[in-house]
Structures are given as C-alpha cells and as structure tokens.
C-alpha cells in the first residue's frame, strides 16, 4: 500500500511540476464551454435575405415589413431584376430571396389569391428548410390577418405547448452536448499519453522492474488526472448554470455522480489507448483524429440519432458521450431522477468495467 501511495505521489509531482500543462488542462474546458456554449446553436436567425418587389403596392410593402420585423430575417437588399437574385446567391450574400409578383394587391383583392415565390440557397438544406418554413409561417399569418372577420365553419384549433424549453433556447440542447464533448475529449487526452510516454522516454523499464503490480501502476497513473477532472467538472457545471444560464432542474448530486462516472470512463479509455500504442504520436492521433469527429457527429447533439442509418445508430451506441448526453439532458433540463436514466447509467458502468479490464489486460509487462 505504501508503494502505491508513493507511486501516486510521483504522478502528482509529474503533473504539478509542469505549470503550463496544468494551466492548459484546467483552463481549456473553461474557455471551450464559454465559447461553444454561446456560439454553437442551430437556431437560424438574422439570416440575410433579399426581396424583389415587382408590384410596389400597399399589400406587398406591408408583407415585406412583416418579414423585416421578424428576428429570423435581415433584409440585406432590395433587388430590381431577376438576374440580380442569382448574382447575390453566387456571391454568398444572401440565404433566401422573396419575390412578390406584379399586381400582388389587386390579385389579393379581386381573385382572393396571390403568389409569393420563395427561393432558398439549398446548399445547406437544413437552413434552407428552416428559412422557408419561417417565411411561410409569416406569410400565412399575414394571410390570416387579412381574412380575419370571416369566420370559417368547422374549424379545428390547435393549442401548442412547448415542454422544458418554452423560449426555445439553443443552449438547452447544445450546452449538455458541449459538456459531454469537452469532458470526454479532455479526459481521454489527459491519460492517453501517460503510459506510452514512459515507454517512449525509456522510464517504463524502471517501472516494470519495480515490485509494483501492473494494476497499481495503471491506477496510480489515473488518480491525479481524476482530481484534475473533478475540478473540471465543477467549473463546467458552474459555468453552465451561472454563465450560460442552463438550469439544473433535477438533483445536483445525481448529476455530479453521473459526471464522475463519465469522466472516469473517459480516463480509462485514455489509459487503454496509452497501453496499446507505442508512441505518443500514435496515441494522440487515435485519441484526437480518431475520436473527435465521431464524438461530435454520433453523440446525438448535432444530428438526431433517430434519423441516422441503422449501421450508424449501432455505432453510436459505443460512444460514451452519447449516453452521458442523454443523462445530462434528462437530469438538467427535464429534471427527472435516476429512475429515468438508470439504463444509460448501467451502460456507462458496463463500458467502464470493460475498458478497465481491457486496459489491464493489454498492459504489457514485458518490453519488446
């Protein structure tokens, strides 16, 4: 036991000696959470659009005013010919163009029918879709307003209620995702090069001839990083609540425990990478290039998992961040308890046990 403690002490020295690295390890999550928490959102707002008004009458002017008033659109330009529309799109100046035909008001008054053309830059289909939807909603509202007073028979009304996030804040879905992403990558990266570094520097031999068991070497490596991670969890949670204003509706102890579970899983994943690789370069390449994109894309916060093809849905299951994301979202925002997330928790525990087992088995006690 005494040996074990002195081992842990050695690892602590290694880390605390290097102030620069420490600063990066503790400062990085803070900066990232703040930047991504504010900047990442799939809300579409302030989109630059152009209008081509061919009728220039009272009705078209008031419809354009409605568009201008919404926070989704920013009218960049008033165009005068159809050719200009294409030019503006090509230059990337606008995302959508609204074209009102000649005799707009007259058509509305006499034929009870008029047309509006909405052209979207569909190179980003998501934004195009959303913008077209927003524009349609505004135009339909306008239409309702001018029909008002003529109550139609057999009318079905809808009453809509937004659960959990009535103000539709983008932060509510992105902050938990960013938490999962940052925690997972930082923690994995911290431990990914610990063992392989000793191999590369040649100090591994010294460790292996000491009477300490491999299991203890592996665990001692992770302990100091575990404490660093605790600090990171605390700072991330504090920032989410007080700076990004995402509430913790569920129980805080549960959230902290789940975060610790997730962090430890990531640390052990790093240890596994470290013990199967031969150079720091390889270890880093796996933990970054290998994990970065899959974690962003398959953990469910950028793209809905239920839309993915079957194969990718299956692959997404082995990404720890996916499960943690579900847990954080449920506990923080929906405010539910362990009874709603016990399955996800079990999956994480299972991953932890598996990774720990693998990294001890793969830890070679002989150098080649």
């Amino acid at each position, binding site marked *: 036991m005494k040996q074990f403690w002195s081992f842990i002490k050695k690892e602590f020295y290694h880390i605390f000696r290097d102030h620069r*690295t420490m600063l*990066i390890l503790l400062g*990085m999550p803070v900066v990232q959470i703040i*930047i991504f928490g504010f*900047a*990442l959102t*799939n809300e*579409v707002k*302030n*989109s630059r659009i152009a209008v081509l008004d061919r009728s220039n009458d009272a009705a078209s002017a008031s419809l354009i005013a409605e568009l201008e008033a919404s926070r989704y659109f920013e009218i960049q330009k008033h165009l005068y010919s159809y050719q200009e529309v294409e030019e503006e799109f090509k*230059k*990337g100046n606008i995302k959508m163009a609204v074209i009102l035909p000649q005799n707009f008001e007259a058509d*509305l008054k006499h034929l*009870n029918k008029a047309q*509006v053309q909405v*052209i*979207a830059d*569909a*190179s980003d*289909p*998501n*934004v195009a*879709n*959303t913008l077209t*939807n927003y524009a*349609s909603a505004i*135009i*339909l509202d306008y*239409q309702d307003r001018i029909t008002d007073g*003529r109550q*139609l028979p*057999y*009318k*079905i009304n*809808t009453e*809509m209620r937004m659960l959990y996030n009535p103000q539709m*804040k*983008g932060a*509510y*879905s992105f902050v938990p995702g960013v938490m999962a992403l940052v925690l997972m990558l930082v923690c994995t*990266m911290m431990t990914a*090069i610990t063992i392989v*570094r000793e191999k*590369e520097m040649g100090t591994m031999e010294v460790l292996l001839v000491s009477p300490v068991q491999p299991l203890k070497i592996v665990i001692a490596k992770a302990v100091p990083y575990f404490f660093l991670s605790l600090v990171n969890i605390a700072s991330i949670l504090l920032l989410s609540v007080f700076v990004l204003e995402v509430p913790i509706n569920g129980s805080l102890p549960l959230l902290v425990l789940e975060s610790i579970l997730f962090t430890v899983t990531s640390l052990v994943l790093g240890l596994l990478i470290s013990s199967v690789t*031969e*150079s*720091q*370069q*390889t270890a*880093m390449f796996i933990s*970054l*290039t290998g994990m970065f*994109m899959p974690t962003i894309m*398959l953990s469910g916060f950028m793209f809905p998992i239920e*839309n993915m093809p079957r*194969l990718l849905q299956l692959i*997404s299951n082995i990404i720890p961040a996916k499960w943690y994301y*579900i847990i954080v979202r*449920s506990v923080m925002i929906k405010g*539910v308890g362990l009874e709603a997330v016990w399955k996800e928790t079990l999956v994480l525990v299972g991953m932890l046990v598996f990774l720990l087992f693998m990294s001890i088995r793969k830890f070679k006690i002989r150098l080649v």
Partner: protein
Amino acid sequence: MRTLLFLLQKEFRQITRDKSILRMILVMPMLQLVLLPNAADYEMKNILLSVVDHDHSEYSRQLVQKVTSSGYFKLNSFSDSYADALQEVEEDRADLILEIPARFEKSLVHEDQATLFLAINSINGVKANLGGAYLRSIIQDYNREVRTQWIQLPRLSPETTIDIVPTNWFNPRMNYKVFMVPGILVILVTLVGSFLTSLNIVREKEVGTMEQINVTPIKKHHFILGKLIPFWAMGLLVLTLGFGIARIGYGIIPLGSFLTIYVFAAVFLLAVLGLGLLTSTYSDTQQQAMLVSFFMMMIFILLSGLYTPIDSMPTWARYITRINPVAYFIDVIRLVVLKGAGLYEIRQQLAIMFGFAVLLNGWAVLSYHKRS
C-alpha cells in the same frame, strides 16, 4: 538544396517507417469520410409521437391515421392520459404529444369548432419548431377535408390564400451530403496536417535529437522546410483520396474546377502547417503541443460553419471566424463544389489565406532558435 533533399529523405523515411501510423493517417480519415456524412441528416422524419385520444370517434381515428401516414411521424404509443404520455416524453420514447379531447367530433360538428392540444419536447428548439409546423399543416389539411365533406365551397374561394412557391437552388434535391462531405473532408485534412506537424519538432526536442540537428550546419529554413513539405504532401494526398471517395461513394463532382480547390488547399495547408510549427517551437513536451493544438483545432472546427451556421453566432464569435483558416476553406470548398465558383470569385479568401500562411510561417522561422 542538397541539404534540403537529404532532410526530406530523412523525414519521409521517419514517416513511412512506422507503418501503423502511416496506415492510420490514411485509413482513419477515409473510413470516417465513408461513414460520418451519413449521420448528418437533419431532415425531420420519424418524430416520435404519442397520442392521447379521449374521443375514440371516427374523426379522431381519421386524424391519427392522417398524421401517421405523413411520413414525418412515427406513432410510438396510444396513452390513456396526458400524464402517461408525459412519462413517455420524460423517458425519451416520445417527442410530441397529440391530445384529442373528449367530444372532439361532436363539438366540431355541432359547435363549428374544436381544439386539439399539442405538447412538444422543445429541448432542441429547431426540431420542436419544425415538428410543430408539420403537425399543424397536417391538421389544417385534415380540417379542409372535413370542411369539404360538410359544405360545398363556392368556386371562388371566400378564404384569401397566398400561394407560397418555394424553390431550392444549388441543391434542388436537398441532399445534405453534398453539403457535408466537402466540409468533413476539409476537417480531416486539417486534422492530419496540424496535429502531426505540431508534434514533430517538439518530439525531436523531447527525445533529444534536436541538439544533434542544432550542431549540424543545417540552415533554419532548410530544417523548417524539411518538416513542412512531407506533411504538406500528406495533406494533399488525403484531399485527393477524399475526393475519390466523394465521387465514388456519394457521386459528388465539383461544379467548379479542381484547380481552384487545389490552389486554395495548397495555401491553406501551408497556413495550418505553419500554425503547427509555431505550436511546436513554443512547447517543451509533446503533451503540451498536443493540448495546445487540440485546443485551437476544436475551436477552429466547431466555429467553422460546418455544423452550425456562422450567421447564427453572436457577433464576437463571428469575429473569431474571420481569423479561422478552417472557416475560409469550408466556405471556399462549398462555393466551388456547389456553386461552381472559380479563382476569381474566391480571390479575397485566397489572399487572406496567403496572408495567414506568410505570417504564421514567418513567425515560426523567427521564433525557432538553434541555441536554447
């Protein structure tokens, strides 16, 4: 010149010697390019729906039938009460609740109107908005059907209607992959280029071979060029392989010319590699270099406009994107691939990137000293 050739030979040998890392540099990005773009599908379908039908009438059945056959919604369950349905939402088995009140049919027929209740899980606001809009338009359609059953509408509709004619340019089939594949390719090229260079010099420091190089008569710029060129070539190789996959796997052929893309990519890689070198000269250990470049790359990639539109970001974040080389490349590659832009249209971005390349590499050369 000869010194440079020998240095290049050494670097290439070091890279190709380690077969496992070489394989990883080439295979891992390609595998990701084959798999990941399929995950990026934002089209709303299979929104999980829970129905609470208190009415059990012919009309309520018709309505549910109409909603589920639309393709956007997947009926998860019929619940007996709103509380049960809410439970489903809490456990992530449903995203949307449609509650049909008792006497829905009767009040619609006898009182001329009836009200439906929708509740949407709006943690993801965009998804909730779209889901709600789809469901509403289906209900409106149904409403129109009911109306025509009961009354003969006059030929000239009394209801004023504005027909909205939506058109989608540049990607009329709304194929999300055409948008994502070039972007993901840019990220993979960046990852390969930046991480490896940032580790490279510092590795020589850590292992101790840096001193040996420093006592040789090798010139500073030779040394740095020797470090740059191999990874520059590697980046272009990954880009080429990536376009092969884009063509075979996704049928994506750029509208613009490859020349434009390669010219930009060449300058872009110089800038990114320069950044890697700079990180490398300022770090003492590989761990430091790796953490710093991870930190920068993560910001560059997430604020590049690949996943979330730059227009939606707050003003200060949009300023960050102006000094973000990755954002420029993603912008350019999409302009070229989707809209057929040529060198003339992207001249501004190209000039800025050239500026980055000169600045970063110049800085790296100046800050690298042979004496410690």
